[in-house]
C-alpha cells in the first residue's frame, strides 16, 4: 500500500520558529507514528515540512495567520502506510514554541500493483508531458557534494531505486536508466535554489516547477514506465533526505498546469 496524507494547517498569529524546524517536525511526526527514525537505508516514510508562503530570515521562518499551509506525509510500504493512515494528529500541534492548528485531512491511497497496472500493464496510450512541482528543497547526492538541479536521470534513478526496494515488481536497473536518459528531456522549468536548514549548516536544493517531456519516437512501454515513475515520485519524493522534508514532489494535472500558465 502507498499513502499520501495531506493536512491543511493554519496559525492563529504570526509564528516564528527556527528554519531548521523540519527536522524537529519530522522527529515529532515519527514519534507520533511510533516509527523509529533513521533505521532504514531507504526510508519508507517521507515528509514535506510545512509548505506555503512564509517569510524567512537567516535563522528563522515566520508563518502568517492569513496564509494556508499544507503538510504531507507519505508511506511507501504496508507498515508505514498503515501507521500514517491511523495517525491522529491533535487539533493543535505544538513544537519549537509554535502552535499549528490542524484542519482538514485528505488521503490518497493506492498500491504498487495498481500503479503498475494502470500505467504499464494495461498498456494505456502514453502520456508524454508531465508538470512536476518540487514543493520543498530538492537535491541529489553527488559524492561528497549535493546537486540542486532537476537532472532527469537523477530523478528517475531516485524513484527507481525506491520502487525496486519497496515494490514486488522489479522494474530494472542501470540499463533502464540508460534507456530513460535517451527518452526524457526537460521542456521547461521555473526553479530557484532553496535552502534546507540543518541544525548545523544547510543543503542547497531547488524548488519550483519542471516540465518533462518524453519523445514521441520513444517506445510506448518506456513512455509508460516514465509515467509510472513520475506518479510514484509523488509518494516517494525525490533525491536526498526525503524523510526530513526534502524533495516533496507533486505531479500536477494537465488542467492545473494550464491554470498556472494563464496566471503567469
Amino acid at each position: 500500500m502507498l499513502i499520501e496524507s495531506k493536512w491543511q494547517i493554519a496559525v492563529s498569529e504570526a509564528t516564528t520558529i527556527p528554519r531548521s524546524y523540519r527536522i524537529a517536525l519530522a522527529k515529532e511526526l515519527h514519534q507520533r507514528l511510533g516509527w523509529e527514525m533513521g533505521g532504514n537505508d531507504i526510508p519508507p516514510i517521507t515528509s514535506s515540512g510545512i509548505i506555503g508562503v512564509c517569510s524567512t530570515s537567516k535563522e528563522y521562518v515566520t508563518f502568517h495567520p492569513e496564509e494556508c499551509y499544507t503538510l504531507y506525509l507519505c508511506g511507501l510500504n504496508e507498515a508505514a502506510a498503515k501507521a500514517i493512515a491511523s495517525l491522529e494528529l491533535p487539533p493543535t500541534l505544538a513544537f519549537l514554541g509554535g502552535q499549528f492548528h490542524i484542519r482538514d485531512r485528505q488521503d490518497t491511497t493506492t498500491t504498487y500493483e495498481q500503479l503498475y497496472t494502470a500505467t504499464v500493464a494495461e498498456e494505456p496510450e502514453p502520456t508524454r508531458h508531465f508538470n512536476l512541482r518540487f514543493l520543498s528543497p530538492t537535491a541529489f547526492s553527488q559524492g561528497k557534494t549535493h546537486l540542486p538541479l532537476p537532472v532527469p536521470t537523477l530523478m528517475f534513478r531516485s524513484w527507481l531505486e525506491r520502487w525496486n526496494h519497496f515494490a514486488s515488481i522489479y522494474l530494472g536497473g542501470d540499463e533502464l536508466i540508460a534507456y530513460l536518459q535517451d527518452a526524457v528531456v526537460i521542456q521547461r522549468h521555473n526553479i530557484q535554489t532553496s535552502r534546507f536548514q540543518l541544525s548545523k549548516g544547510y543543503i542547497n536544493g531547488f524548488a519550483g516547477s519542471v516540465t518533462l517531456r518524453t519523445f514521441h519516437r520513444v517506445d510506448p512501454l518506456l513512455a509508460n514506465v516514465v509515467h509510472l515513475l513520475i506518479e510514484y515520485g509523488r509518494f516517494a519524493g525525490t533525491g536526498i533526505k526525503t524523510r526530513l522534508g526534502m524533495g516533496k514532489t507533486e505531479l500536477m494535472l494537465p488542467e492545473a498546469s494550464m491554470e498556472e500558465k494563464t496566471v503567469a
Partner: protein
Amino acid sequence: MVATSDKAIPKPNFYDTKRIRLTSPLLHIGSELQSLNPFEYVATSDRVFYPNSEALARALYKRGALPDYIARIEARESIISLLEDVFGDEWQREKDDRGNPLFPKHRICRKWTNNSITDLRPAIRNGMGQLYIPGSSIKGAIRTAIAYYLLKHEDTYRLPEEKRTSHIEQQLRERIGGGSLKKTAKFADDELFMDDIFANFQLSYQGKQAKTKNKPSPNTDFMRAVQVTDSQPIEFTVIKRRDKKIPYNIPAIAEVIVSSRFPNGKAKYRASLYVEIIHNIRTEFSISVDTDMLKWFKHRQGMKLPFQNTQDLLNICQEFAQEQWEAERIYWQNISSNPNAGDRNLDFSLIKERVYQQEACPYSLRLGWGSGLLGTTVGLCLDEELVEKIRDACGIAAPQFEAPKSRRTVVNSKGEIRYVPGWTNLKILE
C-alpha cells in the same frame, strides 16, 4: 631443548589448499606477443626452433656472419641456409663460446603442419623460457564460472536484483534493439557487471567493521580469498603405463582452423591460424581457499557466497563446463562437413565422434585461447538473441548471424581436424 606439550596451541588451519592435476588434450595460453616475426623462429620441415637470440648473435659474430644475419632479417628472409653454411647440418645442437645452446631444448616445438607458417602465435613462457599455465588464467576462468553460477542460481544466492534483467528491460531490448544497446554496451562489459557480484562487499574482522570504500574495489572482492598458483613448468615427459609409453606435454605448432557454418548447416571456412599449442598436458598447480578470510565478506545487498572450499569451486567449474559442452555439442552435431570449402576439406567427423561423443562433459573447465564467447562470458545465461546483440555491439558486428559466430579446431600431425582447444580436466590430488 625444545619441549612440545599437548598444551601447545595448534596453529589454526585457515587454508583449504589442494594440489590439482590439470590434464588437457590441447591448450594454448597466449603470451604478451600475439604473433612472432619470421626471424624470431626457425621452421624446418618437422620442427620449429626458438633461438636464444643473444647466444645466436654472439656465435654468428664470432664466425663473422653477423652482418649476413642482419641482412637476412632486414630482408625478412629465412636464415636456415645461413645456419647451415655457418654451423653445418647440426646447427640445432650448436652452442656459443660460453656453452649456451643456440636453440635451447625446451624451446623446440614439433611442427604439425606442412603449410607455410604465417603469423605464429607463441604460447606463454616463464622467465626461464619454460611453458606454463599462469595461475591468473586459471583463476580468471574460475571467476567466469562463478559469475555464471551465481546468475544461474540467482535466487539461491540472492543475487542483487539490479544485476538481474527485468522483464521491462528485456522487452525494451527486444524492441529498441541494436542502436540503443551499443550505447549501453558497457553494461555488457564484464567489469561493471562482475564488480557488483564479486566486489560489493563489506569486510568485518574479529567483530569489527573494516573501513572500506563504499564501492566495489579489489580489497572487497571475495576472490581475494582464493589463491591459484602458476602451474609447474610444462616439460616433455614420457610416462609408462601398462607397458605403454605415453608422451605428455608436447609443444607443437599447429594449424587452427576458424570455421563457421552456412544457414543450411554446411561448414564454412574462414581462416587458418598457426598457433603454438601444448598437446596432452599433464601438470600440477594448487588452489588455496582462505576459509577464514571468506568469513570477512558480507555482501552489501545480502548475496550469499557460492563456495566454501576448493571442492565447491571445482563443482562450480564443472557445472559451467557441462553447460558449455552441451551448447558446443549441439553446434557440432548440426554441422555437415564441406569437402570443397575453398581449398580446404572441412571434415569435422573426428570432432563429432572423438571430441563431443558423450553427453556428460568429461572436463572440468574450459581454459585459455579458443574457449570462445561462451567460455569467457556468461553468454550461456542470456537469450541467444541478446548474445548476438552484445557480440555486434562489443565485437565485430555480424548481423543476422548466430553468436558465437565461429569455432576453432586444431589440425593434427596427420592433417585431420581432430582437436578443440581449451578443455581441461582438474583432479584434486590427495
